[in-house]
């Protein structure tokens, strides 16, 4: 023990003097980052010809005041409230069905997109992942606008749009869940000569199912929010009502629709928060 201690160099009583690094030098990543950020921000504001003068003008303030004043008087007409309820249910149905279709489509695409074991050739992995990324990177609203051409106005286009975008999201998540599943049970079945389909059904799927379900529920929550506004391009639900009544400047109806939208989102938030707390207890 004593011999060991001798080998350790004894630190100097006073620390060796070292000049602090220069604040700005070519290697200072943070400096370049901040400089780039400042340039980007200034360029953005400069190039956008924003109409602040117009926004803060007395005329626009008055219009805004009037607009929000009118928004403060929501209509509670029975027949309208009934239509509003129907539209809210339509929004919910769109999101639920869209998510269900996406879960099926996502699982179907996740199978070719995942390499389940080391000897798996997974020939379609690259192509399928490319497709999934393409589906995922185009937002629901753009899909809805595109699908209006083939599906016509109405909730069907919205449902399909949600399904297509969510297929991309879920497919990728599912593929990752399948690839990360423990290999043991699948390996045991494979060595017994069980064909790939059954190996998936009886070994992999059983293990990853809870994870797939939780991803699906999480996306459903997101999709309810998305479905509420998707309609502004004409794809059904609350959004379509909003765009319609706002276009006609019927402010009290618009106000009720906005309240319904906020309530729907708030209810989803609260239910999700509570269920997470109950489930994680």
């Amino acid at each position, binding site marked *: 023990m004593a011999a060991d201690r001798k080998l350790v160099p004894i630190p100097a009583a006073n620390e060796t003097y070292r000049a602090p690094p220069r604040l700005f030098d070519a290697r200072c990543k943070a400096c370049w980052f901040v400089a780039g950020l400042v340039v980007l921000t200034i360029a953005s504001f400069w190039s*956008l010809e924003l*109409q602040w003068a117009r926004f803060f003008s007395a005329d626009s303030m008055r*219009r805004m005041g009037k607009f929000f004043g009118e928004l403060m008087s929501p209509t509670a007409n029975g027949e309208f409230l009934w239509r509003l309820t129907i539209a809210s249910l339509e929004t919910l149905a769109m999101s639920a069905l869209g998510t269900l279709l996406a879960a099926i489509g996502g699982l179907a695409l996740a199978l070719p997109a995942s390499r389940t074991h080391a000897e798996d050739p997974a020939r379609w992995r690259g192509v399928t992942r490319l497709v999934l990324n393409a589906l995922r*990177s185009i937002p629901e609203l*753009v899909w809805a606008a595109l699908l209006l*051409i*083939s599906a016509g106005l109405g909730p*069907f286009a919205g449902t399909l749009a949600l399904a297509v975008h969510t297929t991309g999201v879920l497919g990728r998540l599912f593929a990752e869940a399948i690839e990360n599943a423990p290999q043991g049970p699948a390996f045991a079945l494979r060595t017994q000569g069980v064909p790939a389909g059954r190996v998936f059904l009886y070994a992999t799927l059983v293990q990853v199912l809870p994870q797939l379900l939780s991803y699906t529920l999480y996306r459903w929550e997101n999709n309810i*929010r998305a479905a509420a506004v998707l309609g502004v391009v004409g794809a059904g639900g609350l959004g379509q009502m*909003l765009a319609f009544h706002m276009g006609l400047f019927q402010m009290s109806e618009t106000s009720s629709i906005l309240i319904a939208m906020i309530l729907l989102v708030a209810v989803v938030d609260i239910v999700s928060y509570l269920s997470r707390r109950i489930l994680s207890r």
Partner: protein
Amino acid sequence: MSTIAASSPAWRDPAWSGRVFWFGAALVLIVPALIATEFKPWTLFGADNLKATRNFLADFLPPKIEGEFMLMVMRETWRTVAIATAGITLALVIAVPLTLLATSALSVSALTGRMNALPFVFRQAIRGTLIVLRSIPELVWALVFVRVVGLGPTAGVLAIALTYGGMLGKVYAEILESEETHVTNSLLRSGAGRLQAFLYGLLPQSAAELTSYTVYRWECAIRSSAVLGFVGAGGLGQQMDASMKMFNGSEVCTMLIVFVLLVWLADQASAWLRRALG
């Protein structure tokens, strides 16, 4: 014991009744949903729709890459990024002061037990404001501001500023409150001001996390500023909407490709920055 071992395994599926029940329940839920969403897949293959789809898709290839059009696409792409950046900057202007006001870690009265009633109510009110700002989708804000300031990027910038101001403020407050409060408390106890305690206690601990969340939100804002164009708030979305309404497939195709590339680039940039922040 021996009787159990000797008896043959049950041929009936023990989970049969549960399966039948859940299948029935799913049917009961799905059928109304199918009716409510007017789910008629065969309309996709109706003669008229099929023709429109085929014409539109046939026009996709080749994508339009003529000089003047590409210049316009590039300009609009830059505007999409600029709307997102300007929106996030204004969102920070909203979020940072509100976060400082809402953070309970900077409460002086909470140093000696419970926070006083007035500051507590005030902080909860600020937090409520942030949640309300966040819970109204940016698309709805954009619709409202397009009515007030007219078509163009101003509406998009304001919409992003309000929604993302709420989001950033709420998450910033949560990040700050999850930090170790030891340093902050010591500073406050020895007479530092709240701003000093924040700058020297809370901020150094959480700066990386705050920056990384902001960068992530900037990436989201680019995606949403493209979408906001569809209600007339400028940028790539507005041009895409115009081309779709004219069934101009080749223009739509180019813009979709540019949009996917933009999202991919923003994703890579944001991932790189967040990795660099550690």
